């Protein structure tokens, strides 16, 4: 039994995969709490797709794909912040325009590459088993940066997310915090590319945080529980991937989804089962949501 748990990590590529997965699992889940509470899931998915042109350009130039993705993600995040500032157009409209434009540019650039290798496929679907030493350090560094920023600005993020007008009045600068969060989201998505790829990043951002939302009643605990769920999903996903020989990113996401479904049915107070057996609570909830 113990061997079954330790064997996979005898090889160094698996050790790197584990470290990268853990970093991604924690940082996605923690930032994901704000994504869930601010209803930014669509934005996260859009940002992930919008980095494609950056990756394609980096590939054409022979530069680091991760660096290309990072530059593209931050540019798109700032673009969305700029276009939706002061409510000239709605944020989801701004996202829709920029996300599809960037995706189109990415497809256009990729279509000019005749012999594009598996690298681009890996950006789309992740390849955590192929994480190099350099990529691992970049991943760990960026993850640490995002986590540190969230911790330092925690109070401002909380105020801005809960009640932006009040946040403005106690000096928390909600507009600036929105831009900071967009940039952190961009960095986090790039960090996640290697483990789950463009297609599945949104799941890592949303699913563990949503599960934690069902289980907790205060934001600090929600963030801690989400981080724990992110770690469990990442590690369990890697084991599944190793023993069943399936794609690791997809395995991580499906473990997270499984945890969510179990919680959704069984969680105290917010779960389906609880509400069915405590009809008084359910009625109360419906009354409040009106």
């Amino acid at each position: 039994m113990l061997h079954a748990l330790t064997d996979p990590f005898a090889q160094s590529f698996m050790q790197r995969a584990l470290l990268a997965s853990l970093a991604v699992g924690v940082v996605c889940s923690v930032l994901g709490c704000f994504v869930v509470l601010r209803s930014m899931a669509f934005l996260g998915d859009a940002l992930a797709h919008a980095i494609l042109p950056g990756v394609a350009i980096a590939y054409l130039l022979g530069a680091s794909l991760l660096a290309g993705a990072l530059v593209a993600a931050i540019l798109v995040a700032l673009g969305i912040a700029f276009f939706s500032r002061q409510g000239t157009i709605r944020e989801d409209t701004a996202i829709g325009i920029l996300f599809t434009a960037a995706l189109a540019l990415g497809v256009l650039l990729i279509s000019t590459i005749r012999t594009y290798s598996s690298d681009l496929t890996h950006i789309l679907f992740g390849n955590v088993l192929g994480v190099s030493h350099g990529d691992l350090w970049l991943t760990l560094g960026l993850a640490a940066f995002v986590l540190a920023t969230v911790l330092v600005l925690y109070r401002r993020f909380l105020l801005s997310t809960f009640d932006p007008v009040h946040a403005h009045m106690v000096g928390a600068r909600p507009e600036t915090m929105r831009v900071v969060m967009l940039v952190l989201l961009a960095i986090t998505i790039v960090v996640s590319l290697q483990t789950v790829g463009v297609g599945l990043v949104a799941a890592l951002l949303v699913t563990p945080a949503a599960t934690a939302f069902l289980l907790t009643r205060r934001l600090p605990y929600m963030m801690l529980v989400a981080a724990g769920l992110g770690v469990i999903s990442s590690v369990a996903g890697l084991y599944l991937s190793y023993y069943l020989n399936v794609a690791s990113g997809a395995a991580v996401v499906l473990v997270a989804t499984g945890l969510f479904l179990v919680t959704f049915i069984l969680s105290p107070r917010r779960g389906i089962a609880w509400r069915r057996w405590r009809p008084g609570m359910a009625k109360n909830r419906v009354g409040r949501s009106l």
Partner: protein
Amino acid sequence: MKRQRPRSGDIRVEAATFGYAGVLALDSVTLQVPQGALLAVVGPNGAGKSTLFKALVGLLSLQSGSLTVGGRPPMERRTATAYVPQREEIDWLFPATVRDVVMMGRYGGLGLFRRPSTDDRQAVDEALERLALGDLGDRPIGELSGGQQQRVFLARALAQEPSLLLLDEPFTGVDAAVRDSMVEVLEGLHEAGVTVLVSTHDMELAASRFELAVLINHKLIAYGPPTEVFTAEHIAAAFGHQAVFLNGMVVVDQCCPGPTHVH
């Protein structure tokens, strides 16, 4: 006449015009509210009540004219101003307890890291007591009744110890008992010298419990003691065809939500 230095809760609005991208919300308003006033801001939906509040906290700049709070631009005075939002503007499923929300009133003085001091905790406890929320401190905000929810935000405003307090339709969806207890708290603040502005549809309440009222509809229609403000002529000017006159009574048809959940 010697001009007095403005006190921290004085509001002075001079020929101020407000609007958003091409839409005129309030035209050429002149209004002086002395510190410690208890003022009802009355007008139909979309009359510019929220616009006035936004300008008072520095979230909306003027197109012309001037507006000062305590003699300074609102942006500089915003931390001394507290705001009670409409209940629909809050995500009640947000993971926070009653005490968490009331403590947010103290964050302005705490910066990024400083832990709440004994003074901060005491201010929060006092605010909870004053609004009869003492037993509910650890309750998630999503598990409160409508009246309790509205009181949580008034408690947050008290904990903030402001010199100006703005309440946006605070009595919508609360029953008469809760409303009266909230008005009592507002009267206490008024006596303590805090300027209190309340936007409301409830002319009856404005006339009976407020010393000052202002009637607006895209412009200032009347300002003064309620008996002078709520005349048939002024009400007709503010509400137009929504106001119906029956045997010396004024009936105003307002399509505002009634109490949805009482406690």
